[in-house]
């Protein structure tokens, strides 16, 4: 074992044998270039094979390894233990989701909401393959590009106080994905999506705390997307109620 060590305190919970979650502390070598995920895989390989967590790419793109690290949502593969040393690192599952086991949370709610917002190109008529690709200017691409960067890591749901209070709320990643398609020049599905988005559990659930955008590891800025949808929804409402002739 290396000379320097660091303590990793991990929340453990196996529903088959634990009445409630508890913390377990592991001592691992301190390696300056290790991320939290490296420490977890070390524990699993060398100390306790039953430690349970999701991970895959180790390059901050697959979105598997979101954990609460020292109380805040982060990717395990992008959070260095040197930023905590010599203090211990506390690793918990993401907040606002049921714990399935140890650091693994149940994601069903997100997966359902994600599908509800119709995250795909909707058009009255699609080009055939022979008709070729759609043209899209760089200016048109920039309008939505940022919102395509979401890796579905769920850090934003963990950070969102509104989602914690009201699980009906669609939440940051789903709403920003809806915005992504609404803003895509190739899409005509905005009205269909707005039925979901303009509902109480849609954008109006958001009180613009901005915690989602601060937690996002990919600078998607879901809070900004939600504000833009709110403006669009208000403008739709005004067109419908105040200027009914303005609605197409």
């Amino acid at each position, binding site marked *: 074992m290396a000379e320097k060590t660091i303590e990793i305190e991990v929340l453990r919970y196996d529903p088959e044998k634990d009445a409630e979650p508890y913390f377990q502390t592991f001592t691992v070598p301190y390696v300056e270039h290790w991320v939290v995920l490296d420490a977890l895989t070390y524990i699993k390989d*060398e100390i*306790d*094979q*039953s430690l349970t967590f999701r991970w895959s790419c180790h*390059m901050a793109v*697959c979105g598997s390894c979101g954990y609460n690290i020292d109380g805040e949502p982060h990717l395990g593969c992008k959070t260095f233990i040197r930023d905590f040393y010599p203090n211990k690192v506390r690793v918990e599952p993401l907040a606002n989701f049921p714990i399935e086991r140890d650091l693994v949370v149940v994601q069903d709610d997100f*997966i359902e909401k*994600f599908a509800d917002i119709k995250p*795909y190109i909707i058009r009255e008529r699609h080009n055939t*393959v022979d008709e070729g690709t759609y043209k899209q200017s760089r200016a048109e691409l920039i309008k939505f590009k940022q919102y395509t960067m979401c890796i579905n890591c769920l850090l934003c749901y963990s950070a969102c106080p509104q989602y914690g209070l009201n699980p009906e709320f669609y939440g940051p990643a789903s709403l920003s994905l809806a915005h992504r398609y609404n803003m895509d020049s190739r899409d005509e599905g905005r009205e269909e999506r707005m039925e979901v988005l303009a509902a109480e559990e849609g954008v109006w659930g958001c009180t613009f705390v901005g915690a989602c955008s601060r937690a996002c590891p990919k600078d998607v800025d879901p809070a900004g997307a939600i504000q833009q949808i709110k403006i669009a929804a208000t403008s739709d409402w005004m067109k419908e109620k105040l200027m009914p002739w303005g609605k197409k």
Partner: protein
Amino acid sequence: MEVIKTDIAILGAGGGGLRAAIAVAEANPTLHVALISKVYPMRSHTVAAEGGAAGVAQDIDSLDNHFNDTVTGGDWLCDQDMVEMFVKEAPRQLTRIEQWGCPWSRDDDGSVSVRKFGGMKVARTWYAADKTGFHMLHTLFQTSIQFESIHRFDEFYATDLMIDDGRCQGVTAIEMRTGQMKLFLAKAVIIAAGGAGQIFPFTTNGSIKTADGMAMAYRAGVPLRDMEFIQYHPTGLPGTGILLTEGCRGEGGVLRNKDGYRYLQDYEMGPETPLGDPQPKTMELGPRDRLSQAFYHEQKKGRTVETIFGDAVHLDMTHLGEKKIEDRLPMVRMLAKTYIGVDMVKEPVPVRPVVHYTMGGIKTDLNGATLMQGLYALGECASSGLHGANRLGSNSLTELTVMGLMCGENAAGFAKEQAGKANESALEKQAADAEERVFSWVRKSGGGERPVTIRKEMHESMEQGVGIYREAGPIKATCDKIAELRDRYPNVQLEDRSNVYNTDLFSVLELGNLLDVAQTLSDGALARTESRGAHQRLDHPERDDENFLQHTLAYYSGKDAPRIEYEPVVITRSQPAERAYGGKAKNG
């Protein structure tokens, strides 16, 4: 055991599995599709592909060019009928991905941009900055949501193919959340479960890339083909093995040794090209196998750079400027900054070759059909005949779209014809046997082997015996080592007895898959006494077309080493010739 009846079961929900699922849904919406994956679709390793997807896009280019580049790049081990079909279908299938919303990077006129890539004569690599795989995967996943006939089984770990009457009729999979085994009865099964990078210690591949699909087919008697051809990508970050896309060089990045010298000109890839003006098939735009081999020689000559993670060379992009790097390569800039503390805008990044891609896999024809009725395969787990002895960068993302379509349509057609009733009791008996075999791991005590020990010994041996350069002695030692590890494997001891998300169990099953498939690699490498593409033998440095213009087939033989056979390569119009790059390739 719960039985889930479906028409088509698809193993793997990455780019290939999703594309196949959509193809089935479009071909015949009445067919029930079970899309089964051990991870949520967006975690699949397609997500990590960076540089782009190849398909002829410019008037100055031609299908013949793409064909010739691919066959030459593959050192004539490609099946040319497959390549012919592929290059023709490639632009069409990338067009579909565009129509489904992929945020491709764009030219001034709003058409999709293409960039230069290694071994490609003309720029034809479609890209979405440096996150092409990520965007293609998310586009396919999101598009798949609208098809009601696609039923996802996220976080189900598949264990065994169910075979009766010589036909694949289903699969068993563990629901990871409950630990319960389920039997999926299907009229056809498509495997799109990814490659085998985790056989090696230093790889760009995510932890999930454990050869599961290959191993399942192999144990069911379907041969794995050309497994000795493993691609080293020349530019991985030392330490983590994180990939820095070939797009870095396509956009003008250059490789330098410790003296700042662009060493590729010493390895038949010159003449040196001007900074900022990369030339096709020359210097840094040579093919991956040649570039990784050049690193090996530079290392032998003592001309590499020492880092705390071992020897490296420098990938220099400092002449490109921040604007271009941020526009074209923002993610790799972030990756190099985060994981190695180097900003590529300001200084060269240390890089070294890293295991990246399994050229071989489950043998299929150009419809994606395997030698077993009802079983199809595509993507990195498959050997369609496209990549030969060395894959050209950006051909594999496109392959997912082309072969996803082929597998989906052909499996849908096959399923439609299966009117007869399955012998369900026989299949249920097989499933019960699979369940017994799997869960005996959890019940078993004693044995005393730690899985990590076996994994590390496998890693070390594979790197030593079947790395970039190989020769008989070390390869034989690796063959013996893998055989020994397979003998020891039954003594592996689990510590986790829980039914809920038992990753101890899954990783032990994955280890078994890795060991079985590693043996096809080492034994295939020992038997191939020539040098071709990514398989380089120090003791047999020449290509030997007389004896080895052939595909290797590895057949499962239980506890013994695989049975190795050969079959001819399909050659239609390109006869084997010298594989020339740099100045020599000018006329090619």
